[in-house]
């Protein structure tokens, strides 16, 4: 934790409510996000118990698996999920705009501009916490290799239609969620914790109810008290609260359930379902389980949308649209792969793909850090504290020129600052100039400030473009990090994988992974 965050947390302790950790919203928030609150069966990691899903906060769709060990009931759940989620995910596929992109012409080897489609918007899935993101990944993995009766008439347990397709989409969302700054699949706790600092630890911030209590406490109660109550309060003894005795008054936001709920209410209800002899008994038992599961899901559903309300009040950061465009590219790319009939994502990436993913995530991380600082003075303040940026007033500008045949303007600018940047000889610094970046290099420390030599952003002429050289009295913020960091060198094609990384894949191995063999005791 940086000192800035630590300080913000302590201010929150003293104030009794969360303090801002950002002044703008650093993630894209769709006008019509889809919320998904899943629950799993304890101990059977990945076996769904139920879910609330939908884009309308007042009309979520409830899906429940009355007996998670029953394959048909699980399939019914997955089919229901596909029915609820797939139209939303695919609904953005046809609204396109065109973008110009440079591509290498295979015949001439030259870079030529091509017009490509880019989806105008993309879907956004919101889950309550980090566990929800992992669950989406697991669901995706369990579904994408399934075979429907149409694809494979010989399949012993054919999956309902659309289930494998939903698996591919969920896998894509979960994979995209690993890219720093992406917004296709977001966890509400991460989103809120990015924008507010609470007076509790990061571990405790994983509890969505407690986190919201710190950020937006009820009237007349401090955030600290409200968070404690939300986290721990249980229904009193049986005399006053009936069957809910001992249960958490505010159930956890999944995917794991409260063990007391499992043991006291859910287990007997499932036993009744298993023991049901007639259709009527079975229906009654199922209704009971649906009620129980809904009682655990609804609070999380409400909390999630409260989080959305809070986030909407923050103005969007300047670079958020740029990062969302990258999400739209990823969405468009996946849409094209599905349309081209490509096989589902492999179980394990090959060496080149893995290296590519890692490199692109590193670039995305560097880009995110730079953009967040440029969008938000509070983030920039943390970078200034760390010596990675400095702000100050220009005290002197001396015109100078480079040596060489064609002298270029290289003005010396002195900046007075109270910051202590880690600059020394040859360090390059950057500042925003209109919609471009101006670079400079460190020259010397002088008694009245840091002397910089401007090296760019002044045009090609002999004289600098008007307005491109700061004037005395200007207040500027320079960063030691690049504003638009680029990735490293290109990686080879999979066919040219070096022997150090396993060599090229043997012929004929580029076929899809086989589906998981069904066994009698499958969980998903």
């Amino acid at each position: 934790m940086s000192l800035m965050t630590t300080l913000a947390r302590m201010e929150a302790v003293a104030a009794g409510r969360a303090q801002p950790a950002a002044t703008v919203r650093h993630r894209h928030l769709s006008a019509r996000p889809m919320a998904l609150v899943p629950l799993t069966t304890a101990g059977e990691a990945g076996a769904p118990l139920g879910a609330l899903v939908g884009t309308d906060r007042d009309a979520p769709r409830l899906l429940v698996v009355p007996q998670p060990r029953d394959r048909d009931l699980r399939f019914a759940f997955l089919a229901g999920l596909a029915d609820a989620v797939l139209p939303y995910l695919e609904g953005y596929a046809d609204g396109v705009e065109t973008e110009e992109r440079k591509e290498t012409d295979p015949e001439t080897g030259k870079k030529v501009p091509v017009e490509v489609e880019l989806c105008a918007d993309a879907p956004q899935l919101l889950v309550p916490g980090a566990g929800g993101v992992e669950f989406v990944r697991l669901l995706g993995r369990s579904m994408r290799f399934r075979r429907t009766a149409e694809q494979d008439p010989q399949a012993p347990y054919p999956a309902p239609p659309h289930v494998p397709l939903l698996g591919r989409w969920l896998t894509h969302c979960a994979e995209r969620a690993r890219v720093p700054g992406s917004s296709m699949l977001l966890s509400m706790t991460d989103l809120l914790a990015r924008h507010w600092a609470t007076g509790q630890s990061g571990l405790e911030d994983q509890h969505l109810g407690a986190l919201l209590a710190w950020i937006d406490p009820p009237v007349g109660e401090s955030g600290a008290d409200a968070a404690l109550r939300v986290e721990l309060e249980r229904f009193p003894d049986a005399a006053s609260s009936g069957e809910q005795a001992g249960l958490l008054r505010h159930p956890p936001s999944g995917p794991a359930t409260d063990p007391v709920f499992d043991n006291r209410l859910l287990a007997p209800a499932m036993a009744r379902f298993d023991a049901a002899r007639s259709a009527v008994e079975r229906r009654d038992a199922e209704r009971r389980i649906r009620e129980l599961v809904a009682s655990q899901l609804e609070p999380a559903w409400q909390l999630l949308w409260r989080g959305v309300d809070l986030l909407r009040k923050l103005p969007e950061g300047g670079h958020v649209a740029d990062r969302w465009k990258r999400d739209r590219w990823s969405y468009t790319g996946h849409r094209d792969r599905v349309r081209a009939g490509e096989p589902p994502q492999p179980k394990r990436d090959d060496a080149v793909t893995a290296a590519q993913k890692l490199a692109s995530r590193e670039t995305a991380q560097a880009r995110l850090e730079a953009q967040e600082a440029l969008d938000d003075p509070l983030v920039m303040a943390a970078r200034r504290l760390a010596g990675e940026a400095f702000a100050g007033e220009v005290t002197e500008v001396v015109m100078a020129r480079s040596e060489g045949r064609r002298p270029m303007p290289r003005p010396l600018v002195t900046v007075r600052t109270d910051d202590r940047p880690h600059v020394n000889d040859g360090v390059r610094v950057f500042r925003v100039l209109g919609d471009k970046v101006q670079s400079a290099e460190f020259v010397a420390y002088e008694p009245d400030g840091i002397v910089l030599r401007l090296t760019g952003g002044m045009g090609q002429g002999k004289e600098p473009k008007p307005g491109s050289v700061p004037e005395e009295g200007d207040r500027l913020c320079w960063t030691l990090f690049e504003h638009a960091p680029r990735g490293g060198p290109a990686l080879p094609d999979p066919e040219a994988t070096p022997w150090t990384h396993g060599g090229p894949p043997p012929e004929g191995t580029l076929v899809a992974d086989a589906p998981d063999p069904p066994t009698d005791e499958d969980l998903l």
Partner: protein
Amino acid sequence: MNASLDSRTPAPAPQAAPEAALPRQTEALRLRLAELRGPETAPYPLDARALAALAANPGCRRRALLDGAGVDKAALARAIGSPATFGQSQFAFVRGNAFEARVGADAGAELVRLLVETHRDVAAPGPEGVSVPDLTATGQAARAARTRLALTEAFTADRWSLLFHPMVTLDVAGAPAHLEPDVVAVGPDGHCTVVEIKSFPVVDGSADAAKVGAAARQAAVYALALGRLAERIDGPEPSHRGAPRGTDRIRPTALLVCPRDFSNLPTGEPVDIRKQLAVTRRQLARLTRIEEIAASLPEGTTFDLRPAADGTATRPVDELVHAVESVGASYSPECLAACELAIHCRSRSRGSGAVEALGRSVRGELGGLTTVESVLLAAAGTQGDETDPAVSSLRRAAALRAEALAGETPCH
């Protein structure tokens, strides 16, 4: 810091009676611990999970004493009105047991297959088969004795032996802990492997890192205890080439057995536990001696709940809280997932304004400032020494933060 555990074991010569293998516990300490726990109360067993948690927070005197004395921390936490937040769902319990039964079925044939598959240097069992000694006995001491006998036999037998739920003991801060590994496999070459059976899935060869880490720490505790036992069985002579003896018998990789993908079929993954072993050994050695902690308590301190016939505590809450508070704790948010008393310790830690309540890493940058109040006063410039680097960075941080929030500086 000297290794108090190591200084007690190994004994100079192999000991004859299995009882003598138990760490010597003085009669006085035993009485003192019984008094702390309550004379009517049976000691709460200290398992590997608790030990791994204790090793993760070796500075906590409260946990060391309560665990060492066999106090039921969950009951104590309930009695003082701060019950633990975690529990086990019966679904998880049933699933865990069913999977373990499946793995152990057929006299462990599946397990041996996994062992052979994952270790290149072990031989598959021949026609002589696998021996599965019966280790049932009444009482922990008797079970430990059976385990020792079975292990001695397995070391000399030229065949595979699988010990299901053996009982081994480990001296923890001066009190013996009885541990029950899932399975210990002894190969024909005399090497032992700790087998951990867990019910979280391994999907496409990877599993939840936090869960694998916890399993590895647990396995390390078992390996440590087994090593001590093997030392007592073999005596102090060092290993010869090809014939391992003592602690060398214990493989530094444990076998983690989990369900594969979305099925109930077991898959085995060797987990290197050398690091966890070293950490556990060091942390256990660092544990403050329970005797010392017990001696520092005020006369008459006890955690006895004086349970009524229905199990509810009759002891006044004030008295219990006072007793708990007489031993120092070292709380950090990680405790919430590992210790039954964490909710109580957290409220005390927050109440005193300790900075650790916000996370263990917070302390690092704050130098000598230990309370939230002193940090905020230092940041505001009303307290603290300007020349202290922690104080001066805090002041700069506070100034920069205030400036940014007031919207006074642009970020570009």
